[in-house]
């Protein structure tokens, strides 16, 4: 049996005695007899570390690790620099709690302040919080920020990631907010539909760019239309793409959110990830979650502290802007280390490689008879109509070590490339597809 209790049974008995008790049961005198677990837990006995290590390694071995990955759709395979892993495994960062005691938490607080700054730089927004759970919950929380008594309906573009939509829908089920879907046209948000709608009760429109199909939305026109209706625009963005594309701040979004996983976090079967959230200055006090602010100590020294806590649940309880307490602080730090290691030039290089590889892949697929489903400009993902059954193709590619694009229909596949893919790898993929099609 494993245990992390320092004291031996003898020591514990002596401690028990010192407080005037004679059995461990006495500690639990308040628990009614009939509520006590009589026969103990029906679980296996504990294991030594070696056994645990063996078992977990064996279990992890039951997963298929693909050497070649062409799938994205919300989780992206990017290079994680060694320094990122090393820094974020530092014991102090890993084991600390939320920095309530600022005097002994300056390292954490400063790292989040730096993270907030980088998110503002990336998104072009004024204010960032210290993270929420993932990109989808960030979108749902952003929607809640925009609601007021007059405008309570949430509108989501049909081109948003269906998982994000699902989360927004669940949050709306909670809050009772009506939810409407804005249709798409050729894979892009159909802003004409918006203009044709009665938008008087709509609090916000949520778009994603590049959207679920990989297409880059016309942020400026959408923002214009949304603002003309008196609603707010929430833009969910890919943080890598933000190094090159027009920022939500520039095209006029009120809240920018997104999935921070591409910024140095492993795919990890879906988590922990990182929801980033940034807004214009005037919405700052509606942001959910932690925000770190700069201040000074009694000696006038620059310092950092959790601030604007009057928004938060532990102060405002049922009137808080959100119930969030634990966020994804270490993931936020990971993103900050990643962005610092990459620098602007590095991040732009990653983004440019993502785009170039996607176009090369598209070109090669096209030569094999694949066609694009949509025509718009895209970042690093695109949907093809395959000249074969997509699921069958995916399975055959898997057998060759290729994680194909995501099957999104009978003959549809959503492909993704990143800087991790190389020309020769793509050529390899194409060769296998050729074989499969033959």
């Amino acid at each position: 049996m494993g245990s992390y209790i320092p004291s031996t049974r003898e020591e514990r008995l002596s401690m028990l005695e010192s407080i005037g008790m004679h059995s461990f049961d006495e500690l639990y005198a308040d628990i009614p007899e009939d509520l006590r677990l009589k026969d103990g837990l029906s679980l296996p006995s504990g294991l030594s570390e070696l056994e645990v290590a063996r078992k977990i390694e064996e279990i992890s071995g039951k997963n298929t690790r693909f050497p070649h990955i062409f799938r994205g759709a919300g989780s992206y395979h990017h290079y994680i620099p060694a320094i990122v892993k090393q820094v974020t495994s530092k014991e102090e960062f890993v084991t600390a709690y939320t920095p309530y005691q600022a005097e002994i938490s300056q390292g954490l607080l400063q790292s989040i302040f730096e993270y907030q700054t980088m998110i503002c730089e990336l998104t072009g927004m004024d204010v960032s919080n210290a993270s929420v759970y993932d990109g989808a919950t960030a979108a749902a929380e952003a929607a809640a920020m925009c609601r007021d008594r007059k405008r309570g309906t949430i509108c989501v573009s049909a081109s948003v990631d269906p998982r994000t939509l699902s989360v927004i829908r669940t949050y709306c089920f909670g809050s009772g907010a009506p939810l409407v879907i804005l249709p798409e046209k050729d894979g892009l948000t159909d802003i004409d539909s918006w203009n044709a709608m009665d938008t008087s009760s709509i609090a916000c429109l949520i778009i994603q760019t590049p959207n679920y199909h990989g297409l880059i939305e016309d942020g400026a026109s959408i923002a214009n239309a949304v603002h003309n209706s008196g609603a707010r625009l929430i833009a969910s963005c890919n943080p890598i793409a933000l190094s090159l594309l027009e920022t939500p701040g520039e095209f006029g979004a009120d809240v920018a959110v997104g999935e921070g996983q591409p910024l140095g976090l492993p795919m990890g079967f879906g988590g922990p990830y990182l929801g980033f959230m940034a807004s214009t200055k005037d919405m700052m006090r509606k942001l959910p979650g932690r925000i770190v602010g700069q201040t000074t100590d009694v000696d006038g020294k620059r310092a950092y502290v959790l601030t604007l806590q009057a928004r938060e649940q532990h102060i405002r309880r049922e009137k808080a802007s959100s119930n969030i307490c634990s966020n994804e602080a270490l993931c936020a730090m990971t993103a900050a280390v990643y962005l610092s290691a990459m620098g602007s030039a590095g991040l732009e290089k990653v983004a440019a490689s993502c785009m170039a590889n996607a176009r090369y892949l598209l070109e090669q697929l096209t030569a094999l008879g694949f066609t694009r489903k949509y025509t718009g400009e895209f970042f690093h993902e695109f949907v093809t109509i395959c000249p074969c059954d997509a699921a069958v193709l995916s399975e055959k590619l898997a057998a060759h070590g290729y994680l194909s694009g995501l099957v999104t229909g009978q003959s549809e596949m959503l492909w993704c490339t990143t800087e991790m893919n190389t020309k020769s790898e793509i050529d390899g993929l194409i060769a296998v597809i050729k074989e499969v099609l033959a």
Partner: protein
Amino acid sequence: MKLIFEMGAPGRGCDLIPPCTTPEVTVNVPMRKKALHLPEVSETELSRHYTDLAKQTHGVNDGFYPLGSCTMKYNPKINDAASLLPGFTNIHPLQDTRDVQGCLEVLSSIEKALCEITGMQACTLQPAAGAHGEFTGLLLIKAWHESRGDSKRTKIIVPDSAHGTNPASAAMANFDVVNIASDEHGCVDLEALKAAVGDDTAGLMLTNPNTVGLFDPNIAEITRIVHEAGGLCYYDGANLNAVMGVTRPGDMGFDVMHLNLHKTFSTPHGGGGPGSGPVACKDFLAQFLPGLRINEQADGSFTEETAAYTIGNVRSFSSNFLVVVRAFCYILTLGREGIPEAATTAVLNANYMMHKLAGHYKMAYDHTCMHEFVMTLEQEKHQRNVSALDIAKELLDHGIHPPTMYFPLIVHEALMIEPTETESRETLDEAVQIFLDVLAESEAHPEKMHEYPFKTPVRRLDEVGAARKPVVRYLYSNE
């Protein structure tokens, strides 16, 4: 200490990514106009910067961390190692079920273990944190009432001693919050509860042991009252570490609950997250669970399906998976004997410390505590103007992370101490001595108490100024 933006120089950086091997492209869409301004630092500078930041961060290994309600136990290293296995980290969440059998085994196994520990019948690992779990659990309650066409149940009863997340979660789920006062023991006032319940009661949210560290002896009666009124009972698992393997929320009559894997199951808290807040529930609520339900087949393989009346998803993918892996290893390690042993020792350690401090510090409730206890500095505040905060800040100079301050709200000048089971007797004894020394100091030099800490990287901060004129990002001087 410099910000990373104040370091480096234009053109510096790390060489991480090779030149692209496919032809360069341009896209015909609006590009960003304002140049992206990220740090330009070499790996030496970057690495030293975070080394400096780490030195100004207090983690569990830097000293005793009795932060009440947060269960800051030691974080075993084998769990971290397991979470770094490439067979977990390199798995795309949208791989075919066939290709993620290992991940599903982890999820399925821990779901079963959590059900056994909580006395529940179903579990989802999707929620990313405790508050996220609360929200999820409340949605299950909401969905259940709705499924029965019972639309008048709009109220959630929350004791005034509850964690702030409870009412906030209820509000997010669009419930009205009914606060009920605690009795003189810090427990639920049965009469107040009886008066509060009715046919508009959707449910009750309760922590037990409660936030003053006591196990509510009337717990069966409490859940009965709520059930009889047609409401459901939600258990806030924040304090589960006190009773795991000893008694079970399911057996107490709770219908749904969350667990904090980053508290009870020793996954590290990462300076504020990632955590993990699984929700466990009774059978009748399983049909509403979010995410994908995992089923073990006769051949030992795992399949996934959506629950019949699922509330949908509360985040994109399965779970904070790599956090879950850590907790899974922890449960494997402790097993059936180790889990109650951990709980009992946590309770013993708390009572041991309480016993040694009582007579010097005033206890908010003079009763055998569970895994934590609350002291009140009300008298010191009144007599000498020394507050709980002052005491806490002097503790910083002794290398101890202060207890939770000013919580629960029903205790004035509260300091809530949770030693956890992973501290040795020596550590507890040393901490007791420090607490006593600090109290003596506060008696001898009450005026000096407002000055502490002296030895920390920075001293007391201007929090009011920070909130009044928020500076929440660095601005480059040339902007």
